[in-house]
């Protein structure tokens, strides 16, 4: 390196030093420590006590609630995530039409996703109240006797999915951006060949925006696994463990049951599962994700 390069390097590091220190102290160090804690019994008020693989063994072999929380989380993954991906996409297609006042429509649909999570959770608890809430009131206009929603073990998770769908505006904006990126010539060429609406969708739109679908899928998986703020406020894990999600169970273990070591083990298992799923999706992505910038 020349003297100039060395000087510039030094200044560069100096400028990013605050951020770098923050990253090391507040992110890297806790991550490393949590890995260590996952092999200990750590109640926070006492020193960590080495227990080797006991936490992992107990989680996988004995802890029924661990498996229930995974089951609940995969339910959200299997039902909630596809619904939110499809809803976001449909919404984006609708909002891509050239209609007057579209900017206002887009803003309205985007707003819910930036509201504070706790406030929207409390709002929806009231909307879903089986006796006084608006949801069942509206259903009753159509003669439908609404279910117990958050008070009923069978309907609590669907209620939470609906709650999450209200915030689909965030993903929608990204879809919108990518939809507008699809070259018009492709549509025109397809119309010349006699393609109809549905065929245009499947053969042009979807492939061209597949990178964004891919991105939203990965982010959605990571987000769903960590889903717990709304549940903590709305149901606390009930009724009858039907909304005890992985993130929530982890929280209880760490901060209410004096088992930070156990919770750390849960965190690392979560990391492993998320990593495996992400790798799997990346590996299969070559089959359906099309980066139109690659073929020039």
């Amino acid at each position, binding site marked *: 390196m020349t003297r100039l390069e060395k000087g510039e390097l030094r200044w560069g590091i100096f400028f990013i030093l605050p951020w770098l220190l923050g990253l090391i102290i507040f992110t890297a160090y806790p991550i490393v420590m949590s890995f260590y804690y996952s092999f200990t019994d750590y109640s926070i008020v*006492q020193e960590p006590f080495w227990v080797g693989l006991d936490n992992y063994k107990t989680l996988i072999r004995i802890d029924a609630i661990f498996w229930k929380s995974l089951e609940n989380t995969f339910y959200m993954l299997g039902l909630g995530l596809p619904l939110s991906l499809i809803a976001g996409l449909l919404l984006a297609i609708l909002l891509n039409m050239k209609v007057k006042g579209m900017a206002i429509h887009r803003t309205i649909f985007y707003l819910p996703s930036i509201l504070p999570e706790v406030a929207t959770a409390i709002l929806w608890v009231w909307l879903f109240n089986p006796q006084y809430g608006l949801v069942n009131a509206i259903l009753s206009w159509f003669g439908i006797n609404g279910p117990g929603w958050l008070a009923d073990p069978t309907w609590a998770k669907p209620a939470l999915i609906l709650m999450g769908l209200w915030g689909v505006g965030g993903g929608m904006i990204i879809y919108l951006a990518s939809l507008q990126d699809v070259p018009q010539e492709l549509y025109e060429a397809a119309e010349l060949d006699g393609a109809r609406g549905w065929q245009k969708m499947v053969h042009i739109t979807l492939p061209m925006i597949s990178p964004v679908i891919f991105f939203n899928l990965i982010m959605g998986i990571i987000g769903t696994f960590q889903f717990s703020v709304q549940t903590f406020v709305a149901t606390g*894990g009930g009724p009858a463990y039907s909304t005890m999600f992985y993130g929530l169970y982890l929280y209880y273990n760490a901060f209410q*049951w004096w088992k930070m070591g156990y919770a750390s083990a849960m965190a690392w298992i979560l990391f492993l599962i998320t990593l495996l799923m992400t790798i799997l999706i990346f590996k299969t992505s070559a089959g359906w994700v099309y980066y139109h910038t690659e073929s020039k």
Partner: protein
Amino acid sequence: MSKRILGLVLTLVFIISTFSTLAYAEKVKIVYWTGWGGSELEDLKKIIDEGFNKKRSDIEVETVTTFGAYEKLLAAIAGGTPPDVVSAVWDSQLASLAARGAIVPLDNYIRKDKIHSSDFWPRLWQSFQYDGKVYALAATTNCQFTAFNVDMVQAAGLNPKTPPKNTKELYDWAQKLTKFDDRGNIQILGYRPSGIALWGRLFGGKLYDEKNKKITANDPKVVEAMEYLLSYNKFLDPTKYAAFTSALGNYWSPENPFFAGKMAMQDYGEWIVQFGKKYNPKLKYDIFPYVTPTGIRNSTQFGGSMFCIPVGSKHKDEAWEFIKWISSPEPMKKIAIAFTNMPPRIAVAKDPEVLEAIPVLKLTIPLMEKGNAFTSVSMPVWEQYMTELSAAESMVINGQKKPKEALDDVTTRIQQELDTFLARQQKK
């Protein structure tokens, strides 16, 4: 010349400021985290200010509220900056903290300052202890019972002078007092017993065998209690019940369901006197002890805030002085009257002024003195145990598990947790 004057002035300022900090350094400042909030917090601060801060020249107490933020204490202890005194600890949480060495035993202080355990309610004094050591004192306690709305009871054709004597009569009253609308939704709730930890005890069972360190959630009497809780499903559909209760006002607010006329009966402690005065002075209520299957009504569940000293406190002696003061007769009496709670000291509880301010003590003092007075389970994995029990109750009420099965599962899981905890404590 001007430089010299400047130098002199600066030196003078320096000297004066040094002396003034020395003067302040004489008073030791201690921090007290309390669980009380709202108007009770204001009353408490006033009592502490007038009775302790102004009267003592060596210690000053700063009262901070931590309304429902138990995790704050954890973080503070872990971070090495705990408060010097904390009372946001319930009797049931004492064991968890003591077993993990988070709070300081007070036996030496008690011996040194000659605090007599016989001055306090015997069972309450027991609840201050874990593993034979005293870890807390209390300035207040509460005994619980069931209260009913006299007008509603009369309107339903029942006799307010003869409240339910046993579980069968309670069921009967609850059913007659519940009103539905034409869509089958609950308009007014008569009563629904809840809390298997409480009702298991009322049915004569025990949730924890302390001597043998055995979890006994599947004790036959506890299973019986669970069946009783389940039986209310016959007229209270669980979903409709959950819908109704989730829309009720906060218990600790002017929208309190009992005082707002949404419930005909509800459980309370001595604080009902204060609630009545504040939230609905016109509501006529009366009280009766918890019912049991046998018809013997001498049971009560008691408990309250425990004043403890976290291990990391840097002013333990001063913290003790504060705890000693607040659990002494005079402040205890003032707090009891302000909050309408039961005083932990027997003599203070029987003081005519206290009895006049809190009429319900006429019912609760005999229960505490001679009756079947118990406190909630106190053991090191209590928090997880209670979460499991309430989930089990929820599963039973929602028809997902049978009572015995649900309680068996809880017993197995929590026994395993407790065994693991105790085994590891040995090795530490």
